[in-house]
């Protein structure tokens, strides 16, 4: 097992290297002059030249990339052009906010998706199943940010149960997390249902039933445990989707998360911040996928890659 974990983590290194290369190239080959981006359009040739040299922009691509990689490894993601502070500091402030929404979103996902998926599978082809599946059809089609606005309209403006926008208390996080959790629950519930249906057809479930166990025990103690294994991998994959969906919600609910930081920086052309956020976010997503894989291998001993 340890060997598998070590190998899985070692495999992450080339992935992260290529990822940083891609992110670096996107901004390196972007149209427009990088010096003017930093200094503005009206500078004297001397200042222009000194900035070019200061940021190493006179060096060839590969040298620039290696320098960039070196500072990334040292934990230095550059300096924000706009705020003139280290990018890593700004990310450290903003990332936890986004993760709070994401975690609460995952919690809501599980609370809804697992019972709904199990009930739909157990009562296959009944009215309950059809209702659950129609719900997931709606949930997979509804844009997350629009759901956020609907929730804001009904629960903040009309019913006044929650604050309209801002950040600080748990109440502020409920509506955006609910928007993420509900849409994510739709896809997860489908997965739980099909996975549960597969497991319910297996021999060991029939054995458990024929032993005369209560149906509840068969479903919750025997079947559900195995049915949830594929859901673990799905959750790893969904993290990226959740962060992507969180961007617009942070704007709607005025939450100072990393998504909002990225959009503000793009509009202000503060490229080091965008680049740094991309690297931190994609690394965390890659890490989450690997953790999901390892967890998967721990719970299901049949799965060991190579």
């Amino acid at each position, binding site marked *: 097992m340890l060997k598998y974990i070590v190998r899985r983590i070692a495999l992450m290194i*080339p*992935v992260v290297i*290529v*990822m940083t290369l*891609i*992110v670096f190239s*996107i*901004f390196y*080959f*972007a*149209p*427009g002059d990088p010096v003017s981006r930093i200094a503005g359009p009206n500078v004297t040739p001397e200042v222009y030249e000194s900035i070019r040299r200061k940021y190493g922009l006179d060096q060839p691509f590969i040298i620039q990339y290696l320098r960039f990689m070196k500072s990334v490894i040292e934990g230095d993601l550059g300096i924000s052009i706009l705020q003139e502070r280290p990018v890593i500091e700004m990310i450290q402030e903003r990332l936890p906010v986004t993760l709070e929404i994401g975690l609460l979103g995952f919690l809501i996902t599980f609370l809804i998706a697992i019972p709904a998926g199990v009930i739909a599978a157990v009562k296959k082809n009944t009215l309950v199943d059809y209702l659950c599946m129609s719900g997931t*059809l*709606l949930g*997979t*089609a*509804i*844009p997350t*940010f*629009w759901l956020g*606005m*609907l929730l*804001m*309209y009904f629960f903040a*403006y009309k019913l006044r149960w929650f604050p309209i926008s801002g950040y600080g208390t748990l109440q502020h996080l409920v509506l955006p997390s609910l928007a993420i959790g509900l849409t994510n629950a739709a896809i997860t519930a489908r997965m739980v249902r099909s996975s549960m249906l597969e497991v319910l057809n297996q021999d060991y479930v029939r054995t458990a039933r024929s032993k005369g166990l209560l149906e509840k025990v068969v479903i919750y103690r025997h079947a559900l445990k195995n049915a949830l294994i594929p859901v673990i991998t799905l959750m790893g994959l969904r993290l*990226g*989707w959740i*962060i*992507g*969906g969180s*961007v*617009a919600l942070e*704007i*709607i609910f005025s939450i100072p998360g990393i998504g909002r930081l*990225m*959009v503000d*920086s*793009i*509009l202000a052309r503060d*490229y080091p911040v*965008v680049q740094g956020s*991309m690297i931190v*976010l*994609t690394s965390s*997503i*890659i890490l989450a*996928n690997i953790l999901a894989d390892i967890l998967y291998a721990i719970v299901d001993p049949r799965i060991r890659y190579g």
Partner: protein
Amino acid sequence: MIAPQSRNGGVYIENEWIEQQALETGEEKVRKPVTDFIAKLFRHKGAVFGAVIILLFVCTAVLAPWLAPYEYDKPDISAVLQPPSIEHLFGTDEFGRDIFSRIVYGTQISLRVAFVAVGVSLVIGTVLGALAGYYGGVVDYIISSITDIAWAFPTTLLAIAFIAALDTGVENVIIAIALASWSGYCRVVRGQFLSLREREFVQAARILGMSDARIIFGHVLPNALAPVIVMATLELPKAIVIEASLSFLGLGAQPPDPSWGVILDSGKGLLDQAPWISFFPGLMIMLVVMGFNLFGDALRDILDPNS
């Protein structure tokens, strides 16, 4: 006669067999898989429902100049922030512009972005996947490594990164979505090629001395297309949502363009006063996404019964 069961199941292999039969027994049988497929589509409730929704939106986009009662960008100070009524079906915004007309024209942007972006990413992914799967070896290793990494990026975030580098605007949204979403096709096509390239008909083509290009595009690719078409149908709604989100964030289409995302954004600050501004464009996104999802799921059921 019953078609021989192929390892891969699907209709695409069956086509090949029926083509062979047609050579022996005449033209008529060539039509059979097509009519069979259409008959199956018509029997599938989800497919019909989805297709009707998609058709409605396509007609709306094409007939926009005749359907829209007002110009989409013409302000009218005598009709500012009107709730939905007979004159203004979906109400008006803070400039007195008719939301219904804006949404009708917005359909053009949504569908154009979705079809062009998906088309481009499909071509990129299919060509790369075909090369990787057909040649194998080093070519496969390089293409697969890049694809796996592109696959690990969430599409929305990657599209945002491309927009950051390219600047805002509808054309750049198309490029960003295309560059951010080709990896899925590449993986699927590569897998298909890996299993198809050892089949007898490919070996026969090779022995006949056909060029690689002719074998790849003329013989293997047509048999690998079914899952690609299913995937593309399911990518279209994703592209529509990404376009709307980017425009909503101010990174895509810019006002006064009537992109659904732009309309949603313009209603954001007026949610309490004029909820209809944001309500209707979101509803349209949901409907069109549901249409494509239903149709795509049905296509998968019919074309790819094994998955």
